[in-house]
């Protein structure tokens, strides 16, 4: 029995090797840099009093995890769509703008100066409902009409922000409210930013869904062999649509977080270019972009890696204009290290070391 568990653990780890290694190297790099320049401020976590008079945790690590929240949540949904459909939804940023517009529109209807828990909840549910309609549009194109996901989602990618504009008009409404800050920043009395909790909440909800349903098994089966899935009584169309529904919920939640963080809605910049980072997080997390097996923990790690990278570059005073180029270089390395060709070599190497060490131990 014990042996069985150890086999399971080993497999779990092997899928996370690349993201964990990337994270480790980033931490190590910052540590060495910190020692060289004699300033380990990158790792320091302090407390400070924010504008609302709350004592909150501050520091690079906190802001990395905090900043990654919207990305991590969208990337979780992207993981499911990728696994089931073998392709990605590139309209999540644009659909996120629609979701944000609906959210703010509802708040506005109740009065932007009279924001309450009730109006926020109604706004969120309205946003989720509308977003699901849009992601289901994508899902239908993908599962019923069998259009390649990237092509199918290109439609909303192009016109989503226009739709958001139609909902709110050209204004960029400002939301200055304690409740909004409690969602986007911190809740008074709790030093950890709220978005971090929302990531944990979303991850727990998905974990619970995997626990009480067969979603993981079905999604993987459909992603690996759709025809065989059908012959075993699974309806691939439903599973694909379901993955888009979950993505819709993720996008709405992320969109709300981002609106609350920025205290404003701008249909042009809300969740701008998040789709590429989300796809990247899925890839860095060791998930196959061709569908099939997936690991959400890998994806979440992937999101943190992306933000840590950006943050490191910021910390090194790289100009914002050139950050993308540096980011690209590092990402190329991570993606190549995680590619099947390199992965095979690494696993073989790992095994050799492993069997070697076992022999040494047996020798003793």
């Amino acid at each position: 029995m014990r042996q069985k568990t150890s086999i399971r653990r080993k497999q779990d780890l092997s899928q996370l090797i690349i993201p964990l290694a990337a994270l480790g190297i980033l931490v190590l790099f910052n540590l060495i840099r910190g020692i060289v320049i004699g300033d380990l401020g990158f790792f320091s976590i302090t407390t400070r009093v924010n504008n609302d008079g709350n004592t909150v945790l501050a520091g690079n690590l906190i802001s990395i995890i905090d900043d990654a929240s919207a990305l991590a949540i969208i990337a979780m949904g992207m993981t499911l769509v990728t696994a089931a459909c073998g392709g990605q939804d590139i309209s999540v940023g644009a659909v996120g703008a629609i979701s944000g517009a609906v959210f703010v529109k509802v708040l506005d209807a109740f009065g932007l100066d009279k924001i309450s828990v009730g109006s926020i909840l109604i706004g969120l549910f309205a946003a989720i409902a509308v977003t699901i309609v849009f992601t289901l549009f994508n899902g239908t194109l993908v599962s019923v009409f069998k259009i390649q996901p990237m092509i199918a989602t290109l439609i909303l990618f192009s016109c989503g922000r226009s739709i958001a504009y139609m909902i709110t008009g050209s204004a960029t409404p400002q939301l200055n409210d304690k409740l909004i800050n409690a969602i986007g920043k911190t809740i008074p009395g709790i030093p950890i930013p709220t978005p971090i909790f929302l990531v944990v909440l979303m991850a727990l909800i998905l974990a619970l869904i995997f626990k009480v349903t067969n979603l993981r098994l079905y999604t993987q089966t459909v992603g690996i062999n759709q025809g065989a899935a059908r012959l075993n009584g699974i309806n691939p169309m439903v599973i694909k649509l379901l993955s888009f529904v979950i993505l819709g919920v993720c996008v709405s939640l992320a969109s709300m977080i981002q609106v609350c963080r920025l205290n404003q809605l701008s249909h042009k910049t809300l969740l701008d270019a998040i789709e590429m980072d989300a796809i990247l997080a899925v890839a860095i997390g060791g998930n196959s972009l061709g569908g099939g097996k997936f690991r959400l923990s890998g994806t979440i790690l992937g999101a943190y890696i992306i933000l840590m990278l950006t943050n490191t570059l910021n910390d090194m005073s790289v100009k914002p204009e050139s950050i993308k180029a540096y980011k690209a270089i590092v990402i190329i390395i991570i993606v190549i290290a995680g590619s099947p060709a390199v992965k095979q070599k690494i696993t073989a190497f790992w095994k050799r070391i492993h069997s070697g060490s076992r022999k040494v131990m047996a020798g003793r």
Partner: protein
Amino acid sequence: MENRVVRAKDLMNVSQDPQNNVVLSMRGISKTFPGTKALNNVNFTLRKGEIHALMGENGAGKSTLIKVLTGVYPKDSGQIFVDGIEGEASIHSPQEAQNLGISTVYQEINLCPNLTVAENMFIGRSKGARVQWKSNEKRANEILSNLGIPAQADQELSHCSLAVQQMVAIARAVDMQCKVLILDEPTSSLDDKEVQMLFGLMRDLRDRGVGIIFVTHFLEQVYEVSDRITVLRNGELVGEYLISDLPQVELVARMMGKDLNDLADLEEIGQKKTASEAVVYEAENLSSSDSRPFNFMIREGEINGFTGLLGSGRSESVRAIFGADRVTGGTVKVKGKAVSITKPHEAMKAGIGYLPEDRKRDGIISDLSVRENIILALQVMKGFFHPMSRKETEQFADEYIKALKIKTASQETPVGSLSGGNQQKVILARWLLTHPDYLILDEPTRGIDVGTKLEIQKLVLKLAAEENMSITFISSEIEEMLRTCSRLIVMRDRNIVGELTGDELNQSSVMKTIAGGGQ
């Protein structure tokens, strides 16, 4: 005619100096995979102008030996010598093997179906950037007619039959000056006529001096076309024999490493039980997008079979029963009750299981573990909101891995890395776990070794006898069906043309019914 004279001379030289005639020699080849010794010190010799059958059960090391030879796997130790190359040949990739004149035509044809025959023959072979399609087409037509292959150079490959596609792959290899041609299960999806066509081509190439390695599971075909046999078992060389020195029974015994007691066992259990009167499944005028309307019924504990040539509609009929294709009409009764079965899920709920003909395409979920593959159908039947506990699935997997003797490193091994026979057992386990009343097995023994074939036949007989399961068993090997089925439904041109029971269950009457009256 001149060719023939030269050939005769060559043949005489051969007998005088056999050493010169060796085109390929593999010495002391070993290869270890994690957990298994796939090849242990294996020798293999191929001579010019011979068809050499490489035989062994699944996991005997045939594919590994071939993959070492073609540079797909690096060998751990041993040497390979190729005629015309000084010293040891270094083969690290299929491309290098190709350059040495070693070509492979795989079971799954790896050509491009949407290109023309000529394009397929010359793709990836042009020296510069410019491709001389005109002259290539002419050359392709020459080769095709020279080899007697019924295809046109400008024809799209997907318009050719599977056999012709295979022959085009061979023609491509031949035109690349191959000395060693490896045919890996070339006949498994061909009907008898096509097999004869392929054999004609193989004999022709042999006479031209090509050394052919023939890997197959069909014993009769080995004896029909081969000159020599090398037998492997559990990664070790059992021996090399001239075809005349090794009777078929002996071959099977060598492959299995035991006497044919198992066959006797089969005869024993093979007391075909008379089925009860209760009808389990009944279809009237059932038709699907791929099959014509037909009537069919099966009784409790009965084993029946659909037979007919490839394309006769036997697979399409059972797919219609399971709702795998779009059902277009007809009424279905399960245990006397009218039910509607239009999709696999409904069939499963009605107590029907279906092992599909194409294991790779329709059966296994290759990246998922053996455990997940085994529990899949049962899990789906339990429903989306009722996942089994990890422990429960582990117990089920464990039980069936043992019961069916599935060879796997662990439950968590991806099923795609198992050998064909073991993959088939996993799918069989998947359906047995659902305890169906009626199980449809479409070609359960195709492409798997003799031992596993017998195991599966025995299991089928046992399930019907002891658990009263109704089974439809389809196999392209008529003997297998005669051994197991008490009723055979014969199909021709997508229609049922006869039903054989009792004394009619013999090879000649089956053949006659398949062929049609008066011919």
